[in-house]
Structures are given as structure tokens and as C-alpha cells.
């Protein structure tokens, strides 16, 4: 390791991101020059070609709505035809378009960006916060993702890191990172659950931690459930009420919608802290006669709890699943760790306490603990010898497509990684020179209900009568949770050529072009938010 060379830990969140490094053996969160410790994952493209990232960019969601991208994590690694993308198109003020191979692109003025390029700008900001602080360049990072992220989403996040000019040492699961930060330096043997409710995703991981071992026993999640959904409930309530009173639907105008969204997020935070939220947005719209109208409402805790109860209950269905996979009950757990901003809400804390029959651990910052865990892991990968071991699992069952729209299990969910499994295939036709397989992740045996990871085409094996050539396909899931597929001719051992088709990801060429583009992008320094 070169003198002074360090690796940083980045929690790349749906709503907020955070960066941490190891100083004197302890993880510390690095604030930006305004003293802010968490940074909105918002990218605002300014008229002069510079880019604003973070809390100052967040203010532009209203004033520069078309050119300000937020919640990009909800879209990263998704296909254009997915429901999440359709939903985003309806509510996001920025323009979401289709790229090649069913991929998603964002159009800002005359420029088109892939999702990894947008996330790369957030990562670049995190990188420069540390560089400002240390006074020298950093090149390596551990970046966290929701444990329930599939291969496409992990690969896209890794690409984002590379585009930002970072060598991504590891894609680390957020709950695992939190557990690492919790158990780091403590000599404890415990079974714990990490309840991680972020801005856009929910994860639960059950771990067994020992002196130097962090073993994930199971993980489960919902990548369509987060704090944003709580905001949406308040938004619907406010908009419906306004419609009833004034006959104007605020949701029809993207400008009004953004003001409504901002007010809803603030109301959620206020009601969580003060048990009541006074909502007031001046000049939210004009009535047909041109009179400027204000939005005013009072949200009580009881009302709020009623609105979001079903969302809270949904998290516990996922908890049931994780405990069952770990062959445990809530009573077997020694500690509960809460992660993510929304876990500050009293409704979450009391529901979690009720479900697990245990008070969640105090003294853990739910906004910073993931970045700190990432920094610990980054530090230990940089050292020649690690003094703790993360034994993590794959969250989703890996499958291969079979005839008639069905799939077959290859590697079961909650299997420790890295792992590999081989399967032999044979040709169906005389003289066949290609074998194609499609791989999926998901828990249904129907292909349509799983996430397609890609189609692989193998060629360059012997050409013979049907059934004579046997091709052994090896499926590997690496320590990042990323899938690799290779194939070899069983008889000759000759590796075949693998071509990836039908993938939402970026090609090497595209990544290199994006790296140059991102390196040339000037990050503007906004004022403190």
C-alpha cells in the first residue's frame, strides 16, 4: 500500500448519501465545507454546464425542476419497461427516456445520461468532500447497496463508481455495513437483526456476530418500499383535501407537485419529532381567476400513523420471511439495529419494539452507520491482513430459463457468497454452433415473475451431432453479489466464447466515454442549505 493511500466508504442512498474514512483506527464521517454530514442524492444541471450535487441541489428541485435529478437509485439497473420506471415517469419532473437494449436514460436539455452517470456525479461529490478534507486525491472506495439489490442494480452501481473515477473495492450490503460498524472493536457474541428503512428501499438482515466473524444468516427486502412512500401518503392526503376544498388538483402541475412533495417530506419529519406538523405552503398555485392560493393543513400523529400503518406492516411481513429463512424467532435475537432516516419516526420505533419484543439499540446514528461500516470494510481491504470476516449471502435465487417460460433454480437465496455451481447443457440440433441461456433472479419458477439478468450466448465449441457436445456452464456469484457466467466444452475443457446479449448494463466502451465526460464535469460549490 502506497504511503497515505486510503479507501473511502460511501453510503449511496436514494435520498441522502454519506461518506466516511478511518482515522486513528476509528470510522469518522467527513462533513463538507458547510459542516453538512449527509448530502441529498440530488444532481442539478445548471445552465452554464456546471453541476450542483447535494443539499444545495435539492433546492433546485422546484426552481430548476426539469434539470434536477433525484431518487436516481430507484431507477438504477432497471429496464425501461419495468413498473418502477413507468411510475417515475408519471411523477418525476425530469425527462426519463428509453435507451438501447431497453435501458433507461435521463434527458437534460440536449444531453442524455445513463443512470450510472447520474449516480457517478453523486459519488464524485462524495469523493471530492474527502479530497477537500484530506488535501489529496482518493481513488478507492467501498460503495454500499441495499442487500436486496439484484445483479443488474449492483453492476450498475459498480459502473457508477468506475465512472466517478473510483476503483470500487467492494459493493457492500447496507445492513451488513451497519452490523460491522455496530460490532467493530467490540468483543461480543450476539444474534442481531438490522432493520434498514431507507428513502426508497427496505432491507432486513439477520446476523450472527462473534469476536471477528460477521455471518449473515438471511436477508430479505423490498426495493419498492421506503420513506418516499410515506411522503406520498401525506401528499395524497394534502392534495385530496385541497381538491375537495378548492376544486384544483395540485398533482396535475409538476411545479405544484414538487412543492407538495417538499412540504410532505417536511411534515413527515415534523410529525415524527413534535407529534404534530403545521403545513403551510404560500403561493402553491393560482385559481382560474389568477388569485394566488396557499396550502394550509395540520397533520397529527394519529392521522399520520393511520396513513402509513399498512406500509409499516409490510416491513414486518419481510421480517417474518428473514427470520424464517434464518430458522429463528424474534425471541432468539439479542439486539435490533435501526438504520435509515425514516426509522427516527416514533411509529417505526414502537412497531419495531412491539414486533421484536425488544427496545432497539440506542446510540447508533441511523444516517451515518452504513457509511461508517463501509469505511471499516474499505480499511480492512486495504490492509494486507483483515482481522474480521464478513460472511455475506446472495439475497435472491439465481435461475436459468427453461422451456415454456419456466426457470430452474441454480443457486438458492441466502447462500453464502462467493459461490459457484456448474450445470451441463447439450446441443439440440445437428451441427449446432451456439448455445443460448437466459438467467434470472427471483423466487418464482415462472420467468415472467423474475428479474432478467441477461442472455448469454456460447460459441466456439466443437460442432457435432445433436446431444454429442456437452457444455458445462459455470454460474458464479462473487463477494460483491455480482453474477458471472462462463462455459466450457466438457470433453476438451476448451473455454467457449461468451457473448452477453439483452443486458440493461453499459458496455466497456460506454463506461470509458462516461468516465471522460464525468471527469470533465465541473462540480459547482453551492451555498450551505
Amino acid at each position, binding site marked *: 500500500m502506497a504511503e497515505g493511500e486510503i479507501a473511502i466508504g460511501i453510503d449511496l442512498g436514494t435520498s441522502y448519501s454519506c461518506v466516511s474514512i478511518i482515522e486513528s483506527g476509528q470510522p469518522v464521517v467527513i462533513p463538507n465545507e458547510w459542516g453538512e454530514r449527509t448530502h441529498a442524492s440530488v444532481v442539478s444541471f445548471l445552465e452554464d454546464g456546471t453541476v450542483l450535487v447535494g443539499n444545495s441541489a435539492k433546492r433546485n428541485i422546484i426552481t430548476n425542476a426539469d434539470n434536477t435529478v433525484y431518487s436516481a437509485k430507484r431507477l438504477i439497473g432497471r429496464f425501461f419497461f419495468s413498473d418502477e420506471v413507468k411510475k417515475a415517469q408519471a411523477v418525476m419532473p425530469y425527462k426519463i427516456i428509453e435507451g438501447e437494449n431497453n435501458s433507461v436514460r435521463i434527458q437534460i436539455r440536449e444531453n442524455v445520461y445513463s443512470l450510472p452517470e447520474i449516480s457517478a456525479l453523486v459519488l464524485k461529490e462524495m469523493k471530492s468532500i474527502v479530497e477537500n478534507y484530506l488535501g489529496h486525491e482518493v481513488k478507492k472506495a467501498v460503495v454500499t447497496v441495499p442487500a436486496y439489490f439484484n445483479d443488474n442494480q449492483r453492476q450498475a452501481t459498480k459502473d457508477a463508481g468506475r465512472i466517478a473515477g473510483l476503483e470500487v473495492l467492494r459493493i457492500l450490503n447496507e445492513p451488513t455495513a451497519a452490523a460491522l460498524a455496530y460490532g467493530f472493536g467490540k468483543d461480543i457474541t450476539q444474534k442481531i437483526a438490522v432493520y434498514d428503512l431507507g428513502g426508497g428501499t427496505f432491507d432486513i438482515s439477520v446476523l450472527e456476530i*462473534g469476536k471477528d466473524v460477521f455471518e449473515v444468516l438471511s436477508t430479505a427486502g423490498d426495493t419498492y418500499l421506503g420513506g418516499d412512500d410515506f411522503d406520498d401518503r401525506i401528499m395524497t392526503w394534502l392534495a385530496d383535501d385541497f381538491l375537495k376544498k378548492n376544486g384544483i388538483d395540485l398533482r396535475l402541475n409538476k411545479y405544484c407537485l414538487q412543492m407538495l412533495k417538499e412540504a410532505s417530506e417536511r411534515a413527515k419529519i415534523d410529525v415524527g419529532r413534535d407529534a404534530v406538523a403545521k403545513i403551510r405552503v404560500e403561493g402553491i398555485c393560482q385559481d382560474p381567476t389568477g388569485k394566488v392560493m396557499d396550502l394550509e393543513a395540520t397533520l397529527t400523529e394519529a392521522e399520520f400513523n393511520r396513513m402509513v400503518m399498512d406500509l409499516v406492516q409490510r416491513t414486518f411481513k419481510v421480517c417474518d420471511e428473514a427470520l424464517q429463512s434464518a430458522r429463528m424467532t424474534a425471541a432468539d435475537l439479542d439486539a435490533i439495529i435501526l438504520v435509515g432516516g425514516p426509522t427516527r419516526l416514533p411509529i417505526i420505533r414502537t412497531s419495531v419494539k412491539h414486533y421484536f419484543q425488544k427496545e432497539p439499540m440506542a446510540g447508533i446514528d441511523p444516517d451515518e452507520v452504513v457509511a461508517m461500516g463501509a469505511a471499516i470494510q474499505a480499511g*480492512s*481491504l486495504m490492509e494486507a491482513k*483483515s482481522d474480521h470476516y*464478513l460472511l455475506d449471502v446472495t439475497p435472491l435465487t439465481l435461475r436459468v430459463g427453461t422451456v415454456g417460460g419456466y426457470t*430452474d*433454480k441454480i443457486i438458492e437465496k441466502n447462500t*453464502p457468497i*462467493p459461490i459457484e455451481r456448474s450445470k451441463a447443457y447439450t446441443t439440440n440440433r445437428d451441427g449446432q454452433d451456439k448455445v443460448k441461456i437466459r438467467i434470472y433472479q427471483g423466487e418464482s419458477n415462472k420467468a415472467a415473475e423474475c428479474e432478467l439478468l441477461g442472455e448469454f450466448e456460447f460459441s466456439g465449441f466443437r460442432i457435432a451431432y445433436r446431444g454429442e457436445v456437452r457444455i458445462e456452464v459455470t454460474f458464479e456469484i462473487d*463477494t460483491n453479489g455480482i453474477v458471472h457466467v462462463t462455459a466450457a466444452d466438457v470433453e476438451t475443457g476448451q473455454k467457449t466464447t461468451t457473448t452477453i446479449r439483452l443486458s440493461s448494463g453499459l458496455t466497456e466502451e460506454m463506461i470509458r466515454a462516461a468516465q471522460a465526460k464525468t471527469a470533465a464535469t465541473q462540480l459547482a460549490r453551492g451555498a450551505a442549505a
Partner: protein
Amino acid sequence: MMDETFEIEAAALAQVLDELDYFQILKIGQGANPNDIKSAYYRESRAYHPDRFYQLPNLVLKDSIGRIYKRINEAYVCLRDDVKRTKYLADVSGPERQRKLRFVEASEQEMKKDKEQEIGTTPQGRKFFMAGLSDMAAQRFSAAERNFKMALTYEPNNPNYKSKRDEAGKLIKNDMTIR
């Protein structure tokens, strides 16, 4: 830093990986209990976890360690599960040991195929077969045999239909000798 003994050991282990069963991979006896298995897994993880060798410049050795560790995980997944472990132990204690050193579960498709083989792949075949089974349960063996024969006209190669037909046939014979 890594000592030379470990280096030699790891290289040697990678060489013979495909000849070892999961008990040998985890260095435990076939009678190991769940606690033994877990501590063996932790012990081997301490030795071979790839994170420990992240900065290793020797890429050949790094690759060997990666292969060993994947096999350690594979062994743990199988042996920590009682059902899989029982089947695996039978597999590696049998004559086909060499071929069954790596545990492979019957695929969903194969299981579906087996299930179909059992009760049939055609609607008519299944109908007569099920009727035959209820006749058997009610000890109406002649009726059962007729139904199994009818089922076989739809699926002449179904081995389960054949064996049930033969079973019903034998029971009819027994019946007659008693009378």
C-alpha cells in the same frame, strides 16, 4: 503477512479440491454436530476468506484461494442442512462417491417431471389413474386393474401406471386363491 507453509498448503489443497468430500473440505468427521460444522466453517473462513488476500500480488495463488473458499461455502451450505447432509452422506458413502462429491439437488424441473411421471402427463391418463387408486384403497382390485389399464392406453410408457396395474393384478390373484 502470509507465511510460506500456508502458501504451500493452499496450493496443494487447490490441486486436490475435486477429490475431497465436504467433510474433508471442512476438516471434520462425518459425525460432526451442527456446532462442530459452524466452528469448522468459521475456522476455515479465518484461513481462506478472500478478503484476507485482497492485496495478494500472486494472482495464481489468489485464484486458488478463491476456488478453495467457494468450495468451503458450498460444503457449509450442504452440511448445515440436515436433509441435504443425510442425502449427501449416503451419496459419498456409496459406490458412486467420486461422481457425487459435489452435492446437486434435484432441479425443480426434474422434480416436476418425477411428479408428472407419478400421476401422469395426460388429463385422461391422470383421471383413470386416480380412479384406480381409489379403487385400490376400497379394495376393489378388479376395478382398479381396469382403470390402470385404461390409464395406460393414454400413457403406454408410464412406469408408475405399469407397476400399479401389476400390483392390482397380483392382488386379484390373491383374492381368487382365498376364495
